[in-house]
């Protein structure tokens, strides 16, 4: 049998002053043959990134130390080197030329003041000794290889002129510059939109076939790896609890944690799993009506201070939301879904449009500063949405104080009851936010939103930042609370699989406008607008592991319009009792 490209055995990595006491990776072993792809799957804190960073020893720069085990890497000349023992000069030669790496955040992995051409050329200069025109030509070929259209011109662009997906392609081009034999991809698509994610995954798949390199792919999304990996390793708390061939792990998981992960991952089932526990009654007044909501931001910096136009972030969005109903607003970043949510809560001043909550308060766009206790919001990032210096009782008391109330024993009783209801211990009141995990913090945010008995709760990507198993539990809690209190949810999300679990109705937002709206099952199973179709086909899924993603390099159109521009009146087409889509040109 030939020796594998990479053979990791009993790898232990620790952090801090006393690494053996603070072990993050506890005895991980795996082999990787040339051309193979290994996916390392696990939740945050499982040690998956640390394992990967140990292979090219970048972990040393993060304060980690390898305290045991070996990492045997077969070099290009056939010799075997133990990377765990190798010195920094050798490692510098290997990084980039034999082991490439792509990181999660393409925006911060590139130097913002250098053109991308310069940055790709640097790799060629360092490792292949190319100079001047040769290097430029090689950089252009590298961009061509990652399917960036118009490569010669893009070389002169600075990172801020390219989108996240394009930048990630540039990063891949840089990593592949020297034909590495091993590519480590650390959550390369987590920061990207689903449609862009699908493109990057397709690209990585194609490149793998073209170059025959081995790949280690780190992700928290077990559904994503299905299309690309040969082998899977599942990690939990620093240990590899299960590893094996892709089909074997996905279809016949042996370890309980793998089964747990697989069941927690929201499987996208094209509308078959949509909720059917709600019927709209025409007679009831809606909990929230939004009519003709338009948000435009003036672009500054025109000639002589004149505004060259405005960004039409949200354009003529309208819908109504019944008590007890969930309307999901889906779309990719920049589609205006968050702006819509923020406008409804008065955080962004709408240019036009009116809302009425509960049929009682009628608010026109101009007086959106007045906030309405009937509408509350839960934010995306549970680490940023709680003031770290306030105790939980002060945090929960804030909406009450803001509404002009006083903190009485009754309020404290209510806090305790709500904490209990969202599944937190009663003594939480005396604690501070940093003593809670991400999922618990999101429960706190939900409890805070419920302090004033709202009728509408806006959930802005409320479960996106959570690990899958936590995500599933929070979703469950949200559904229970909805039934209990008859809450209406406006659920803003980019994740179709999550949306399928919670939404009764779906509104698809594209470039600031609703392009399709209707019953969740109907929209997901029978999408009509081309964008909805694209969005749905991009959802990664275990069941679709053998389907091939189509590479699509279309970009979202610019939303900047000249002053005074009014979009044409949309034409709608009906596709069922509660499902309509915008007609396309």
């Amino acid at each position, binding site marked *: 049998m030939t020796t594998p490209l990479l053979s990791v055995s009993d790898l232990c990595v620790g952090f801090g002053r006393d690494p053996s006491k603070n072990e993050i990776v506890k005895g991980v072993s795996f082999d990787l043959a040339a051309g193979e792809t290994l996916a390392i799957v696990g939740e945050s804190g499982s040690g998956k990134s640390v394992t990967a960073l140990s292979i090219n020893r970048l972990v040393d720069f993060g304060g980690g130390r390898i305290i045991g085990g070996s990492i045997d890497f077969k070099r290009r000349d056939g010799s075997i080197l133990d990377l765990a023992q190798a010195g920094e000069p050798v490692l510098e030669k290997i990084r980039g030329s034999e082991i490439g790496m792509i990181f999660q955040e393409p925006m911060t992995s590139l130097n913002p003041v250098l053109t991308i051409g310069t940055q790709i050329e640097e790799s060629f200069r360092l490792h292949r000794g190319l100079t001047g025109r040769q290097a430029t030509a090689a950089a252009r070929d590298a961009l061509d290889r990652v399917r960036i259209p118009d490569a010669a011109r893009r070389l002169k662009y600075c990172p801020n002129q390219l989108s996240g997906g394009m930048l990630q392609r540039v990063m891949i081009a840089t990593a592949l510059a020297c034909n590495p034999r091993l590519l480590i991809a650390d959550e390369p698509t987590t920061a990207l939109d689903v449609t862009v994610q699908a493109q990057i995954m397709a690209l990585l798949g194609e490149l793998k076939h073209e170059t025959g390199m081995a790949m280690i792919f780190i992700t928290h999304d077990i559904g994503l790896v299905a299309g690309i990996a040969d082998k899977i390793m599942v990690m939990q708390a620093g240990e590899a609890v299960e590893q094996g061939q892709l089909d074997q792990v996905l279809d016949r998981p042996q370890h309980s944690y793998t089964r747990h992960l697989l069941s927690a991952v929201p499987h996208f089932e094209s509308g078959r799993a949509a909720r059917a526990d709600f019927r709209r009654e025409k007679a009831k007044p809606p909990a929230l009506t939004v009519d003709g909501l338009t948000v435009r931001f003036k672009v500054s910096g025109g000639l002589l201070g004149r505004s060259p136009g405005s960004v039409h972030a949200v354009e003529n969005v309208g819908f109504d939301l019944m008590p007890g109903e969930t309307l999901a607003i889906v779309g990719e970043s920049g589609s205006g879904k968050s702006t819509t949510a923020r406008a409804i*809560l008065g955080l962004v001043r709408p240019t036009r449009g009116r809302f009425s909550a509960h049929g009682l308060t009628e608010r026109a766009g101009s007086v959106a500063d007045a*906030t309405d206790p009937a509408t509350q919001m839960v934010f*995306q990032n549970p680490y940023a*949405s709680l003031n770290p210096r306030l105790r939980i009782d002060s945090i929960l008391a804030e909406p009450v104080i803001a509404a002009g109330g006083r903190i009485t024993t009754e309020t404290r009783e209510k806090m305790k009851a709500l904490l209990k209801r969202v599944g937190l211990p009663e003594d939480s009141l005396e604690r501070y936010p940093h003593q809670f995990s991400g999922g618990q913090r999101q429960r706190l945010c939900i409890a805070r939103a419920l302090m004033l008995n709202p009728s509408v709760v806006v959930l802005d990507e409320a479960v996106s930042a959570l690990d899958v198993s936590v995500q599933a539990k929070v979703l469950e809690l949200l559904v229970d609370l909805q039934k209990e209190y008859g809450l209406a949810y406006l659920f803003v999300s980019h994740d179709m699989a999550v949306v399928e679990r919670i939404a009764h109705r779906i509104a698809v937002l594209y470039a600031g406008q609703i392009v399709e709206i209707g019953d969740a099952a109907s929209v997901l199973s029978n999408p009509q607008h081309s964008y909805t179709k694209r969005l749905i086909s991009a959802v990664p899924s275990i069941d679709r592991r053998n389907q091939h993603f189509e590479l699509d390099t279309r970009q979202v159109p610019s939303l900047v319009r000249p002053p005074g521009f009014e979009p044409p009146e949309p034409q709608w087409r009906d596709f069922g009792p509660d499902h309509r889509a915008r007609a396309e040109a």
Partner: protein
Amino acid sequence: MSMLRAIFSHASGRIGGTIVVVYIIIALLGMFDITPHNPLQQFRIDRLHAPNATYWMGTDLFGRDVASRLMKGIGQSFLVGFCAVALATTAGTVLGLTAAWFGRAWDGLVMRVMDVLLAFPAILLALLIIAAAGPGTWTSVAAIAIVYTPIFTRVVRGPALSIKSREFVDAARTFGSSRRYILTRHLLLNLVAPLTVQVTLALAWSLLTEAGLSFLGLGTQPPASSLGLMLADSRNLMETAPWLLIFPALAIMISILGFNLLGDALRDILDPKTRSRPA
């Protein structure tokens, strides 16, 4: 309590903290006239006496006890320094917070005025203010406060701007929390750490500025004593009575060293980025 423990388990915090505590005790003793001798009493026979068991730090030209005058002077300098820094902190915090919160024209106005104030060297600006208002203890408090206000404004405005865009502030706005509540509970409470560090360092600078002003005869007026004044008096007697120069100079130096060490320690302790790292 945990704060004190953290300071005293930090290497430079231990030294700085001890110095500052000792100084504060001396300053309090001096302020309440608990000194070895009456600092104003002139022991005519013992003029320019070298340090001995009776006069720990010797006597000056008029036969006054240097140790007692030094204690009184430290009390005076600390009074001016603490009052000035308290004023500067309050003014700077209010200006910085409102500039960050309201933005636009108010922000522009406040920050440009602060830029102008910062453009002058500290001591020159203080001199200008005193020249206009006349010398005295309380004018020097005001002058030093005005000189250090821009630094506090900047220290507050920067982080306040970033906290303002955090989600918990957005959340507070969705509840309809009052502006005062958001500014105090959400912004100010999160600024305590940078402010504490800045206050400690500003105390060191303001002691130095006070000494400088008194040295020039624009701060505390004789016969009251202050560190700068004592230095000024010792100039002509440097060779015959070096103790007149050495003790006040050491007193200034050590106090500033103490506050700077304490400030550095606080910065390490309060900065979450360095908190968990090995020292």
